[in-house]
């Protein structure tokens, strides 16, 4: 029983840690499928985490916080779109700039607005998204095996977490079953064909960027006012890059993206549990060894040793009409 409870707890923190990854990863999926590389996911996560926490601290409403978080991500996407769609600039550079912009502005504005060394005030009650207890979770807690699974693992997350999981089937449906999804995939592979068919590449790419912003904005909001009780410096801590790695690992597909994010979340959860634990034969596993696993796995994949990750063909290439 002890081991089983342990497992449930690890899986529970796996889910918690995976949620921002899932949201950011799906966000990246939309823009990369539309042909826009988004290195700026990290900055968008950070920026929207700050926006959400700041708004929620001032207004006392988590929902207004969510609105602000998504708003920040939309603003950053607009800059990215202007640079990479209209001005046909280098998308990677634009993303890098956005990451720095978020890192600089969040701390700078946080300090000058709240005077707490870059932290926003502690949030509580309605200022946060609180866990939702699903029906019968408490009653079923003592049912062997399934009870614990239901009450610990499935119940007791906040609304944004459920949104994240819902986003996966929705994305799969939109991408592969709708006309919009077909066009989205086409514009990332062969924008010229789409243009020839009389569909606006610019418009489609902006639509993709908007969806990206909404998803990553929810992810950032989750970080600061659902998972934590406020914003602190650089709290995205590389999750945007991990999400990008997960996206590649999942070969730009929604269900594999979910699986990869859960795997990376699991590694993250494991890292906390294994601190100081000694194994027979190998002894203590250094935390750093687990920390690097997502990156190393992604590199091995990129190198083509386990399958091949082929990006959408037009990804990163600005589209220019011939005249």
């Amino acid at each position, binding site marked *: 029983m002890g081991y089983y409870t342990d497992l449930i707890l690890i899986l529970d923190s796996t889910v918690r840690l995976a949620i921002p990854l899932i949201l950011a990863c799906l966000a990246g999926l939309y823009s990369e499928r539309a042909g826009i590389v988004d*290195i700026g996911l990290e900055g968008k996560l950070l920026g929207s985490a700050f926006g959400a926490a700041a708004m929620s601290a001032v207004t006392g409403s988590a929902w207004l916080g969510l609105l602000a978080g998504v708003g920040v991500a939309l603003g950053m996407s607009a*800059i990215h779109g*202007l*640079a*990479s769609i209209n*001005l*046909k*600039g*280098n*998308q*990677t*550079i*634009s993303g*890098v*700039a*956005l*990451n*720095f*912009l978020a*890192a*600089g*502005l969040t*701390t*700078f*504005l946080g*300090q*000058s607005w709240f005077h707490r060394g*870059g932290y926003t005030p502690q949030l509580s009650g309605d200022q946060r998204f609180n866990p939702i207890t699903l029906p019968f979770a408490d009653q079923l807690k003592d049912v062997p095996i399934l009870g614990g699974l239901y009450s610990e693992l499935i119940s007791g997350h906040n609304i944004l977490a459920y949104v994240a999981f819902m986003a996966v089937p929705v994305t799969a449906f939109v991408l592969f079953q709708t006309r919009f999804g077909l066009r989205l995939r086409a514009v990332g592979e062969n924008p010229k064909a789409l243009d020839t068919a009389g569909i606006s590449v610019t418009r489609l790419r902006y639509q993709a960027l908007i969806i990206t912003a909404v998803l990553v904005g929810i992810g950032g909001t989750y970080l600061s006012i659902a998972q934590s009780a406020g914003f602190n410096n650089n709290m995205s801590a*590389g999750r945007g*890059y991990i999400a*990008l*790695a997960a996206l*590649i690992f999942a070969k730009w597909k929604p269900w594999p993206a979910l699986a990869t994010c859960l795997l990376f979340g699991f590694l993250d959860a494991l890292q906390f549990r294994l601190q100081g634990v000694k194994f027979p034969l190998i002894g203590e596993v*250094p935390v*750093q*060894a687990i*920390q*690097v696993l997502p*990156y*190393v796995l*992604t*590199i091995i994949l*990129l*190198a*083509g040793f386990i399958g091949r*990750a082929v*990006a959408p063909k037009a990804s990163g290439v600005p589209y220019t009409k011939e*005249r």
Partner: protein
Amino acid sequence: MSTRVPLPRWVDIALLPLLNVVLAFLIGGIVVMLVGQNPLDAVGIMLYGAFGYGSGFGYTLYYTTDFVFAGLAVSLAYHAGLFNIGPEGQAYVAGLGVILAALALNGQPWFITFPAMVIAGAVFGAAWAFVPAVLQAKRGSHIVITTILFNFIATSMMGYIISRILKPDTVASDESAPIDAISRVPQLRLFWSLFKNSPVNISFFLAMLALLAVYWLIWHTKFGFAMRALGHNPTAARYAGISNAKIIMITMALSGALAGMVAVNNVGGVQGRLILNFVSGAGFVGVAVAFMGKGHPLGVALSALLFGALYQGGQELAFSMPGITREMIVTIQALVILFTGAMGDMLRTPLERLFRPREPAAGGG
């Protein structure tokens, strides 16, 4: 679209980048105003902090040294069409080479340890850049992604090496054993009292040499030509008989070696030991410096100096102006990358209109 008249050369290489930088600073100034401070006062304080007195100037040159190396690393790779976002990690790993060389020769005078540190730093930095290069050249994985991932791997790996392997039992914090004073890279204050207690050291002259060497390499050697050919058109380069894979690997190794010099400046010349996260963003500043400098060593030198002044002046500003923190500099850095890098051509069309040679309207529109 009418046939485009190219901009006059001086507008293209000087005025356009300058206007972009001005734009970045204007927006930075608006942000300063937003938090209720006077941007002009801020500029005054920063200028004084960066150039107004000996030790401030010394610090400016110390930062400049870092940024020249990192900026050259990014620029060199960019000429071959490779976007190396990894100088941060390459410099961090180079720190291991520098400290190993220095500790092996500990107690020897600096003119023995300094070259050893340079070579070891270059080798380790090059090695860390070489792996992504091989993956790009042989397996086709994208260098932007792999160098980003290698930054993270470097952070974890170095954290482990410093805290578990290099840390002597006698030291409380996570750092290596110190290098003897006599073996460290000599600081310029030993020769010029002007620099007071600032950490600028002879790595600064190494940076100046690197600027010249990179200029010579890119524009006056066969290798540089092959590199630029690859950067402009990989297919054409291959038809011209250039081995793209070879050029990618050599260029990235050189780029990593340049980034590694950041470690000589810091580990060998300032801290005298290997500490956690000593690079502290210098590698990323290199990205901004490279774009602002348009990849040309002269441009890199000027923009490295500008960023050096910003970093040192920014410290001064954080002391004397309430509400302004060091992160303001990161913001300006971001704006510079955005306007000179990603949106570099925003003003091109208006400028083209402005500088279009006056001729009778024939077939315009």
